[in-house]
């Protein structure tokens, strides 16, 4: 069979390198072509998986001494994430660079980041997982540090400190697993089989260090402090990819961690409690934000917490619901940040105390934002709804009536998002003049993301059919 996963990585690597020596227009053309090719390949993989019901496994020899091979795999969860990453990256390349500054660097960075994302989501062993994790971190850093807004240096430094800390914890966990499994393996499926033989005390240490690494990235309270500034200060493409895709690095890792270590069943209640606290914390913190991008950042943290809640249920409803929410939230939050980026460019601000009457000035952006809000609050026919249904059936069967608690935080989040809509989008009391025109690329990018949100909301069997129980 054609090695789709290798081909994706190859195309993206080639695209990243090829776009560097050329000017603005050619590099954009290369980026569009590369991300589109990846998107098409992702769609083909999905079609093949639906047709044959098989999953993907591709392998090349790599570092034989450690028993590490360059192996990629894709089942339902991985396909969901790869598809999501390729859609978001494509939309980001098409319409994400609303600032239209540093077009060359931004295109290359998006492709590099997508390379990391697809590599990470499909890696079959923790060695590759770690390598792609760090590539993603570095690409994200530059999206903040060199392409971001006025406060980008501070935001980027905080991001970097947290990321290095997370990477170190992740590496610690991976190495401990490698040394204390009898077979000395990095392979994700191999660890799952062998992890039972690791002593409990050591399992706790491994779990804790990796758990910390992943909640930094998701982000989940209390290790989220890098997030508001990073999302708010990054370039529009950066915000889209950091919130939509990079946060899923942590979420996906968490999913692997819970399915891998037997100790997970002992701590799942604590993880769920943390998720519930984090969800309400994020909802309340969002209520005090006046900057639209920061508000979206906190709602993204809330969804991350719900993902953690679903994972901690440790049943297939929770697990696959979380995977579905990773997809749904990635699309929805990218849409919101794209709209917010357009608003920034249109009015020179994302401060909802100053913005008025956006719907009058930029209808498509306003309706897009509203759709993003609807999707975040779990409207049926959007992908988030399917995810919420699955996740909370999972948490109820694991934790009883209390399992529903994190869902209630959506009331607070939704109420505040509608407040923002009423204040900045509808009211025209003092009219803000626009300085820019939302162009065709932005509208196309909106359309791509909206269509995907509804596609996976209306036809969930596209992915759920791949679930094997």
């Amino acid at each position, binding site marked *: 069979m054609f090695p789709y996963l290798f081909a994706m990585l190859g195309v993206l690597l080639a695209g990243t390198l090829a776009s560097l020596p050329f000017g603005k227009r050619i590099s954009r053309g290369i980026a569009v072509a590369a991300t589109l090719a990846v998107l098409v390949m992702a769609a083909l993989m999905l079609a093949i998986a639906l047709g044959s019901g098989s999953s993907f496994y591709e392998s090349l020899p790599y570092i034989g001494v450690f028993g590490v091979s360059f192996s990629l795999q894709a089942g339902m969860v991985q396909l969901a994430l790869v598809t999501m990453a390729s859609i978001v990256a494509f939309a980001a390349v098409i319409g994400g660079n609303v600032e239209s500054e540093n077009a060359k660097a931004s295109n290359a960075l998006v492709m590099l980041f997508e390379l990391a994302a697809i590599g990470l989501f499909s890696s079959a062993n923790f060695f590759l997982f770690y390598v792609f994790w760090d590539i993603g971190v570095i690409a994200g850093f530059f999206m903040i540090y060199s392409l971001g807004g006025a406060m980008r240096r501070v935001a980027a430094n*905080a991001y970097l*400190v*947290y990321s290095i800390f997370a990477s170190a914890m992740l590496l610690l966990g991976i190495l401990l697993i490698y040394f204390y499994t009898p077979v000395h393996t990095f392979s994700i499926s191999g660890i799952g089989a062998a992890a039972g033989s690791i002593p409990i005390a050591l399992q706790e240490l491994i779990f804790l260090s990796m758990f910390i690494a992943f909640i930094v990235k998701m982000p989940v309270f*209390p290790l989220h*402090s*890098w997030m*508001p*500034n990073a999302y708010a200060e990054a370039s529009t493409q950066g915000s889209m990819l950091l919130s939509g895709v990079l946060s899923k690095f942590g979420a996906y890792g968490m999913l692997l961690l819970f399915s891998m270590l037997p100790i997970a069943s002992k701590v799942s209640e604590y993880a769920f409690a943390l998720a519930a606290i984090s969800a309400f*914390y994020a909802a*309340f*913190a*969002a*209520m*005090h*934000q006046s900057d639209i991008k920061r508000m979206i950042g906190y709602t993204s943290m809330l969804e991350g917490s719900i993902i953690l809640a679903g994972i901690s249920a440790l049943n*297939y*409803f929770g697990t*696959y619901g979380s995977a579905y929410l990773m997809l749904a939230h990635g699309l929805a939050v990218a849409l919101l940040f794209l709209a917010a980026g357009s608003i920034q460019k249109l009015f020179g601000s994302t401060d909802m105390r100053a913005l008025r*009457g956006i*719907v*009058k000035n930029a209808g498509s952006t306003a309706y897009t934002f509203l759709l993003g809000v*609807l999707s975040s*609050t*779990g*409207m*049926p*026919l959007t992908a988030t709804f*399917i995810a*919420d*249904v*699955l996740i*909370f*059936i999972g948490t*109820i*069967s694991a934790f009883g*009536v209390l399992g*529903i608690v994190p*869902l*209630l935080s*959506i*009331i*607070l989040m*939704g*109420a505040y998002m*509608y*407040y923002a*809509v*009423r204040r900045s989008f*509808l*009211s*025209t*009391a003092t009219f803000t003049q626009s300085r820019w025109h939302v162009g065709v690329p932005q509208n196309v990018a909106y359309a791509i993301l909206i269509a995907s949100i509804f596609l996976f909301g209306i036809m*969930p*069997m596209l992915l*759920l059919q791949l*679930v094997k*129980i």
Partner: protein
Amino acid sequence: MIAIYAVIVLVVAGIAALLARRHALAPRYIALAGSIVALAIIAYAFLYGSAGTYSIPWFSIGQYSFPIVLETYSLNMLLLMLVGVITPLIFLYSIGFMDVPTEQGRFYFEISVFAAAMMLFAIAGNLITMFLAWEMLGITSYLLIGFWYYKNRAAAAARTAITTIIIGDVLMLSAILLIFSAYHTMSFNAILAAPYSSSLTVAMALLLIALFTKSAQFPFHEWLPDAMEGPTPVSAFLHSSTMVKAGVFLAAVLLPLFAKAGLLRVMLVIGIISALLGASNALTERHVKRILAYSTIEDIGLMFVALGLNALAAAMLFFVVQAFYKAILFMSAGSIMRANNETTNIYDLYGSSKSKLLVITSSIAALSLAGIVPLSGFFGKAAIGTASLYANLLVYAVLAVIGFASSVYIFRWLIVPMRRAPEGEETQISSKYAHLPRSMLASPAILAVLVIAAALLYLYLPGYLAQHMQGIGVLDAATESGIAVAGILVAYMLFRKVEPLAPSRHRIAVSALYNSLLVNKAYALIANLFYAIGAGIDAIDNGLYEAALSGGNGVVYAGGKLRRIVNGQPNVYLVAVLIGIILLVAVMVV
């Protein structure tokens, strides 16, 4: 399963109207045609369709599946028929009302989807399908209430509505998932047939709160009067057959479950409180449409009272007949406002008697609301009254008071705008009444016929629903009508002259009755409480960030210190090793 095509036709018509928005007149006729076709389909399904459930697979995981299920039992068909009849009449009224050419497409798209959502709600056969329709209703009503978004008040009203709606939505979803977890199915039939498990009490309580949000019952009722900022056809639609009726309908469908969960008493109490609040505010409100909105809160409250008494047939009888007169009243209010330059205070509205048709149709509706014999409203109210008479005399007494109040306020609403216009404005206002668009008068006229004809439902509805209903005795009828007549007389005495119940003279009485401001203050208080918590959390969040920052700085600082110590001089290392050994020994000994 032919009824579903009505939903599809309306959605398609709505989209077509949106696409045709550049043609000034096309959207209205596309939507009207769509609604008439939908009505024809529904009528066909009503007459010839068979009762049953139909399942369309949607998604599944493991051994559990989540299909779209539709059902066509008598209750479903009753609501479907009601929405089917009201929709074309609303669209007909809108032809005259919606004369802003640029907004046609958007309006007809939103209102068509709104109607379609209610139709889907009517025939939903499982919880997930119902929730889908429920959310579509909520979102389209948000868009419609905020239709004139550039008006500050409309935007604010839309936000109040959606805030209430989202509370209901999330609680509803929670309840649905809890029910699914208990029964492993979402089908109404299966849930109603299954043995009751006590773990459902929480779920049913959450569900009931969700129903109260949608049906504008205490303490979630204030969004409904605010929603009057939407276009009048929307108000007429919202209050007669859609949206607020959704909560009552679902309560009726799942009534046995609520009974098992012991929540009927809650329904009864909340229904009475809401009805009292609605009636008292309607007595003192001055906004011509808000009076009717409070009246709707009262009507829905009475329906919950009937359901709380387990009198399903009485509740559903009132459910249907209320739609006809309430639609007329709103349409009339829209016409009167149109003739008076969109003034809303009833004391500034004049000359409604200039239009004979308007005054006749709105009088029929008002008499029906007041509960005068043989109009359909009488049967609805008397059925509930009779049900309460056999169950609880206290409830009966309260209902009598509410009945009296409602006949007073509705005749205040009817009589006050009939006054002759002040000198100078008279000719202008009369000519405006004379030039009201015909469709704005035709639609209420058709509804007036329905108000009279629907009296027959008293005979047929219990049989159709296969439910027992307490017969209305002659004495009950006399009491009910007597109370209504007394109310009308009082209203006539009080309001035939100008400016009674002026705030200056009856301040205490008025402010006690008109508690809308108080409720809104309570809402603001709760919202501010949450904002305060938000501010606190945000302060903690900033503290966390600062702590992380200073922690980072601390590491850098320690690194700088460490660099001075780790300088490659053996004696320093030796000292360090010695200290370490001493410490180690100390630890081992102790």
